[in-house]
């Protein structure tokens, strides 16, 4: 036996062993290898035989044309990560395990949509799987040139490995009925394979760059000289058309999200959201590393091997050339791993979709028609899946034999990518946009898929029928503008780019357009909220309201028994009831709706949400609640919340208003009090002279005969005096009131200060003489001109001077000082002074009246208040220096 046969067998055994151990001892394993790293490495299932062989082949022709496939995922990682987290949560909540279930669930649990998606995926990916099988076969052929009957060997090995791969998938891809179980063994194996792939690639790369050639520089130099010497063609620059480049990157990025195998490893098998965050940069790093030597190897291949050599095989060729058995073995195994990983995971995912979205719903529908439970389905679900896997691999196998001979890995890969990308608008749009409708998803996938087939598949069948040939060459009905490979004759688009551009544009536009014009059913709307708002809490509770029917315990148990062991289903039901305090009566009694919901959830994990829903509704005798009701409740909740907010705002506004009113009220009260005080004081002040006037008058009247002329004169004089006092008081009050109300208009004029002072001096002379007070004036020699209301200022100074005289003992003086900007006039007396705390209150209206404790000379007490108001009107500040006990000084500042 060939040593490579042995190696192959051993490798398969190793893979099985790893899977088995990993399943059993995952915790111990996690001590050596971080789960996050395992997650990232499992994502590397993205790198298939396309990476291993196709990239180098592409690089050899175009230099960089292989890059978009890896740049796409790199660029789209942030978006992918965000989507994955959301998907992980939604899938956990609704027990979704594959893409067709996801899309079907999002758009209202539509079975037809799920079936469509499953079908499209299967059609789009079988060619890709076929290519991987071809790669496996290539590897094997490569290591067996010495065989006697290489063809026979190749066929045998091919079949054998296909079977083994299927077996691996069947065993480790679906262990339990509940497809929500994680397949730890599978994932660890995939991760292991990713390591082998990478290591092998890097080792060959190193050998080529530093073993075969002395250094990368030498390699490149040799290449350049040969190109310039004309021995080798330069790279085909046409491959780097910007639009084509962009489209290739875009499609790779989208495919990264929509490929079933990527969904399987990234979402379904994920067990910790944090791993997603790490993968954002770690996975691109893996891509970077595995592509590191692609170009060098491609260039080296061009140099070393003839132009007829298939560049896809450069990696294997170099491994063999190195004459290092280890290297060869590693590359061989790496190539196998690359292909096997893809086949296994993709098959599992596709089979899952096939079963949940097409087979089981069909089966359930048939049973419904026949009016019986699909009891024979039972544990058959697991075998159903396995059968599906086998079916898919077989289809791929046949496809490979029929068609794949002529196609390069790279081109098939891209075609497959474009096919799966057709789900992207419905998928990504569904996850992010609430308004996406089922009709839109349906229409967009159909439209996109149709264009995909038209532009990328049709031309491959040109040889099959003259009609097709005709369409391909000249367009349908002879319309050249609609030729499949170049619709509308857009320039610079190779057929692949043409296909990408048209299928995606029509798809996206259809999705958005149809969504805007169609309405969602209530269930769709509910699901849209559940998906898009997955990070908010609102909806899970609402889902609980859905089922209002009744089903007996026995019915539920029977239903579950179709799929689970009877003991298991009984246990599940009882545990649930116990946890939620539901009392289970005898079997025939109707149970709580929660039990029904629970049963539905359990079934979802087994046969998918859509089918499960169908089954439950068929056994529970109820009408589906108008989901509008549920939606209304949810909307009501939202309304209540927003109403609540509005109320809160209103309340705080009202509070503010009431606070404002309170403070205004306070102010009004104060003003009221002030008014009362004013009235009281004024009346008091008016009554006092009135008393004298009246008394004097009465006495004069009653006792006139007794009075002599002098006495009479005295009395009458006093009456007049008191009347004058009253008049003065009244006018002062009125003046003050005018000042305060702002009604007084100042009468400005320019005048000389000296003249004013002389007038004042003259007018206070009598008082000075009476009290024998000395008066001194200090004035600057220069002329001091003021611009103010002369009469009012006269009043002010008169008032200040008379006050000073009132309180002075012997001296008063007036001092005028002038500097550049202002004039200071101070009036001082040597009286008792003013207590410091009263320097401001002396200007209050009724200061003197209220403070009768002071020695009160004649005067109404309003003088200072009026003076202050006058000065305020002029905006001249007045300062009081309470020089107690040396006397008070009043200082007026006049700005020039």
């Amino acid at each position: 036996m060939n040593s490579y046969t042995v190696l192959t067998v051993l490798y398969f055994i190793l893979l099985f062993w790893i899977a088995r151990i990993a399943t059993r001892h995952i915790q111990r394993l996690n001590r050596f290898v971080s789960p996050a790293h395992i997650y990232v490495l499992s994502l590397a299932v993205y790198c298939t035989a396309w990476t291993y062989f196709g990239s180098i082949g592409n690089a050899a022709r175009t230099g960089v044309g292989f890059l978009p496939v890896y740049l796409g995922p790199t660029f789209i990682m942030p978006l992918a990560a965000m989507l994955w987290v959301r998907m992980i949560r939604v899938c956990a909540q609704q027990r979704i395990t594959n893409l067709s279930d996801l899309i079907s669930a999002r758009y209202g649990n539509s079975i037809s949509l799920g079936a469509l998606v499953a079908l499209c995926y299967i059609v789009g990916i079988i060619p890709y799987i076929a290519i991987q099988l071809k790669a496996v076969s290539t590897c094997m052929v490569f290591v067996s040139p010495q065989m006697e009957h290489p063809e026979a060997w190749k066929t045998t090995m091919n079949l054998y490995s296909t079977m083994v791969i299927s077996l691996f998938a069947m065993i480790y891809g679906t262990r339990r009925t509940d497809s929500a179980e994680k397949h730890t063994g599978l994932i660890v194996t995939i991760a292991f394979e990713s390591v082998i792939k990478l290591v092998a690639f890097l080792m060959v790369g190193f050998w080529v760059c530093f073993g075969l050639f002395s250094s990368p520089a030498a390699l490149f130099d040799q290449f350049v000289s040969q190109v310039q010497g004309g021995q080798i063609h330069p790279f085909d620059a046409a491959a780097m058309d910007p639009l084509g480049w962009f489209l290739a990157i875009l499609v790779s990025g989208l495919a990264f999200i929509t490929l079933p195998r990527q969904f399987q490893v990234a979402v379904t098998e994920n067990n910790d959201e944090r791993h997603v965050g790490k993968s954002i940069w770690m996975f691109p790093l893996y891509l970077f590393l595995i592509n590191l030597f692609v170009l060098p190897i491609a260039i080296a291949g061009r140099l070393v091997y003839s132009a007829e050599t298939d560049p896809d095989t450069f990696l294997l060729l170099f491994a063999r050339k190195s004459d290092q058995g280890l290297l060869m073995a590693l590359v061989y195994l790496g190539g196998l791993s690359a292909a096997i990983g893809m086949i296994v995971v993709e098959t599992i995912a596709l089979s899952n979709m096939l079963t949940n979205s097409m087979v089981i719903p069909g089966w359930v529908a048939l049973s419904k028609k026949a009016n019986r439970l699909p009891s024979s389905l039972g544990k058959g679900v697991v075998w159903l899946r396995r059968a599906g896997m086998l079916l898919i691999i077989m289809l791929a196998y046949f496809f490979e034999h029929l068609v794949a001979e002529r196609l390069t890995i790279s081109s098939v890969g891209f075609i497959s990518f474009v096919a799966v990308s057709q789900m992207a608008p419905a998928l990504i749009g569904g996850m992010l946009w609430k308004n996406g409708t089922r009709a839109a998803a349906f229409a967009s996938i159909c439209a996109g898929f149709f264009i995909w087939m038209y532009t990328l598949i049709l031309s491959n069948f040109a040889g099959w029928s003259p009609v097709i040939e005709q369409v391909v060459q000249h367009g349908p009905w002879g319309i050249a503008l609609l030729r499949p490979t170049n619709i509308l004759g857009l320039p610079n688009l190779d057929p692949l780019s043409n296909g990408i551009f048209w299928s995606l544009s029509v798809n996206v536009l259809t999705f958005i357009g149809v969504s805007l014009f169609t309405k969602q059913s209530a269930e769709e709307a509910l699901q849209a909220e559940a998906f898009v708002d997955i990070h908010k809490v609102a909806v899970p509770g609402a889902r609980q309201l859905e089922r209002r029917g009744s089903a007996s315990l026995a019915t539920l148990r029977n239903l579950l028994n179709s799929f689970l062991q009877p003991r298991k289903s009984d246990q599940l039901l009882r545990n649930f009831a116990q946890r939620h305090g539901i009392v289970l009566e005898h079997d025939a009694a109707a149970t709580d709706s929660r039990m029904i919901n629970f049963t539905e959830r359990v079934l979802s994990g087994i046969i998918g949400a859509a089918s499960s829903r169908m089954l439950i509704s068929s056994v529970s005798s109820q009408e589906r609640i108008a989901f509008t009701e549920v939606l209304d409740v949810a909307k009501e909740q939202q309304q209540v919340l927003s109403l609540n907010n509005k109320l809160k705002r209103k309340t705080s506004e009202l509070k503010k208003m009431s606070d404002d009113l309170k403070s205004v009220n306070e102010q009004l009260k104060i003003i009221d009090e002030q008014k009362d005080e004013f009235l009281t004081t004024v009346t008091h002040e008016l009554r006092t002279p009135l008393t004298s006037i009246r008394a004097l008058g009465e006495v004069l009247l009653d006792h006139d005969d007794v009075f002599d002329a002098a006495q009479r004169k005295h009395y009458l004089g006093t009456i007049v005096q008191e009347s004058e006092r009253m008049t003065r008081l009244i006018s002062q009050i009125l003046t003050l009131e005018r000042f305060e109300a702002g009604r007084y208009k100042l009468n400005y004029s320019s005048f000389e200060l000296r003249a004013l002072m002389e007038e004042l001096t003259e007018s206070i002379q009598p008082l000075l003489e009476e009290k024998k007070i000395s008066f001194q004036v200090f004035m600057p020699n220069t002329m001091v001109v003021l611009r103010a209301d002369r009469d009012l200022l006269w009043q002010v100074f008169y008032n200040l001077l008379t006050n000073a005289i009132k309180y002075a003992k012997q001296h008063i003086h007036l001092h005028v000082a002038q500097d550049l900007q202002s004039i200071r006039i101070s009036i001082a007396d040597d009286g008792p002074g003013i207590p410091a705390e009263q320097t401001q209150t002396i200007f209050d209206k009724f200061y003197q009246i209220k403070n009768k404790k002071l020695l009160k000379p004649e005067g109404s007490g309003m003088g200072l208040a009026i003076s202050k108001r006058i000065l305020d009107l002029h905006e001249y500040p007045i300062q009081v220096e309470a020089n107690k006990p040396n006397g008070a000084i009043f200082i007026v500042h006049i700005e020039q």
Partner: protein
Amino acid sequence: MSAPTILMVDDDPHILMPLEFLMFKHGFEVFVARNGTEALDIIDKNTPDIVLLDIMMPDVDGYQICAQIKAQPRLNNTAVVFMSAKSNPDDISKGYELGAALYVTKPFSTRDLVKKILDMVKAKG
């Protein structure tokens, strides 16, 4: 029968003038005081029958003087009459609570006042 004595206290001389004339005309012995201190001084030295008190005065206000009068047993028979521009009910009741015999609000009629005072004296006997 000795002449009745009256003490008049007000810081406004213009009211004292006619009152003094009137009381003198009616045969009273009149004492005047321009402020509380003077008044108390006079009270110490004499026992007036009537004390006519202004309330709002610079140093000691009329209420305090009344209180002091009423505190002395010697002055039991002295009638206190308040005369004041303060006319609100609280001020008036305060005056009566302090033991005033009469409270007249300014401006008042001298004829009424004199009559009431004469009545008080007659009542005392």
